[in-house]
């Protein structure tokens, strides 16, 4: 159950987007978040929407997964939309019923903001849906490499992240085991008032922490025994390949940006 929550994000399908270099996908998300603020009229929003739709179609991700990504913020999207309709009083009056006044500016603003949210969420979740966490880590390590000059421990950070990812299932299993062991001793995790339930977590967390620290120590010893001594002089087994498709993706982003700048009002 818990396993699915975190790791179920990645959907292994064979598609063009899956095959892209994690670096280009990371850059895409970063740049997309910036340029989406250029859109401010129907045409530009349409363009951004088209771009998003195209990416989604190329990724072959089933709509169900995309919807799951949107679900948590669906409320926020609807809420901002309604707020704008009610309180933005610009442009022509479209509709009036008692105190309720809907202006065309409010409608437009509400629509745009909700669209912006939707596109942002779709594109960012596309990254995690089409790239496995380890590749994201690799991509980040290479992209952050220039920051090494400013003493950013890039190699250590990415190693930490990949070890953390590798240990998630192990610790999940452990949590499950401890939970069952404590349930066998009479701890009730599922019923009772909230305060009691929070208290019941303590006998779960304490053994989990103890064992996690023990694991960390043993892992450190094993790593040292296998000759680990920091990033100096280390070669890399995982190689990233920048392909034509990645260049095309970046070019398409540039083209999109140019159009947005030209067509925005």
């Amino acid at each position, binding site marked *: 159950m818990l396993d699915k929550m975190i790791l179920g994000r990645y959907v292994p399908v064979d598609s063009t987007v899956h095959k892209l270099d994690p670096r280009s996908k990371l850059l895409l998300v970063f740049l997309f978040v910036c340029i989406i603020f250029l859109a401010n009229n129907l045409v530009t929003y349409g363009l951004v929407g088209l771009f998003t739709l195209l990416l989604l179609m190329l990724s072959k991700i089933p709509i169900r997964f995309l919807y799951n990504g949107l679900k948590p913020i669906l409320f926020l999207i609807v809420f901002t939309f309604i707020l704008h309709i009610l309180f933005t009083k610009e442009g022509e009056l479209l509709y009036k019923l008692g105190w309720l006044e809907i202006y065309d500016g409010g409608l437009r603003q509400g629509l745009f903001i909700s669209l912006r949210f939707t596109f942002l969420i779709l594109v960012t979740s596309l990254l995690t849906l089409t790239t496995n966490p380890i590749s994201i880590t690799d991509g980040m390590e290479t992209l952050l490499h220039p920051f090494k000059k400013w003493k950013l421990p890039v190699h250590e950070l990415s190693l930490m992240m990949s070890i953390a990812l590798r240990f998630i299932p192990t610790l999940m299993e452990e949590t499950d085991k401890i939970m069952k062991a404590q349930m066998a001793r009479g701890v009730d995790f599922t019923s009772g008032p909230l305060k009691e339930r929070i208290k019941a977590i303590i006998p779960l967390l304490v053994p989990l922490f103890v064992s996690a620290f023990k694991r960390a120590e043993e892992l450190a010893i094993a790593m040292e025994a*296998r000759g680990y001594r920091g990033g100096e002089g280390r070669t890399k087994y995982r190689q990233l390949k920048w392909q034509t498709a990645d260049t095309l993706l970046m070019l398409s982003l540039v083209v999109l940006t140019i159009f947005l700048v030209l067509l925005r009002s």
Partner: protein
Amino acid sequence: MAKKLVSLENIVFKYEGQTRNAVDHVSFDIYEGEWLALVGHNGSGKSTLAKLLNGLQFPQEGSILVNGTELTEETVWEARSKIGMVFQNPDNQFVGATVQDDVAFGLENAGIPLPEMVKRVQNALNKVKMGSFLNQEPHHLSGGQKQRVAIAGVIALQPDLIILDEATSMLDPRGREEVLETVRELKEENLLTVISITHDLEEAAKADRMIVMNEGKLYRQGIPTDIFQMEGELIELGLDIPFSVKLSKEFKEHGIGLVKSHLTEEELVRELCELHSKM
């Protein structure tokens, strides 16, 4: 006699804050190509010895020579490239996200160039019969498979000596047999030297030589047949002797005409069969 690979001279080691020496004036040699079993009950100093051999700890007195070079802070990385270690818990030594990443971890540390690395990873995994699991994640593997991956990680670095620090103690009987069989095959093929630290005496019985540790001291060393002669003493040390050895002794005491002593079930069964056909 074969060449000395590692020799320990009068090693003393004490953990901080403890009064008793964990390892107390121990000296012995490890010869090239042998399988040495290090046995003893918990706290007898056998695991500490493994850490000393790999330079994870340094002795307060005495010296360790690896291929004639003394093991010090300066030479420790050199020694670690020659001595591989497999630890007890299969999960806590799996660094990589997938099988191939884990095997590559040691190679990356050694700065091996990529084409060579790819070759060695595949080779090492084939040797432990895990070649088809390249992209498997650790939580989908059994304990025995994880330990075999750990062994692949060690042999990819082409060491002279491999230390199994209770590497089979957390595995089920099948996993244990898988791992030991793998190590045995590798040893035959590559003339690898193996030190297995264990309290499974069935495992130790198959070694070329045994060292019994007790309270940090070297209690006895010799070939398994001789060691198992001191049945009562071993039990006093908190060790048990293998079932086949016990049974064979009982047979002899009851006047059944067995001549040899038997370390494994097969040997015992064979002589019993021969005996039976003679009668």
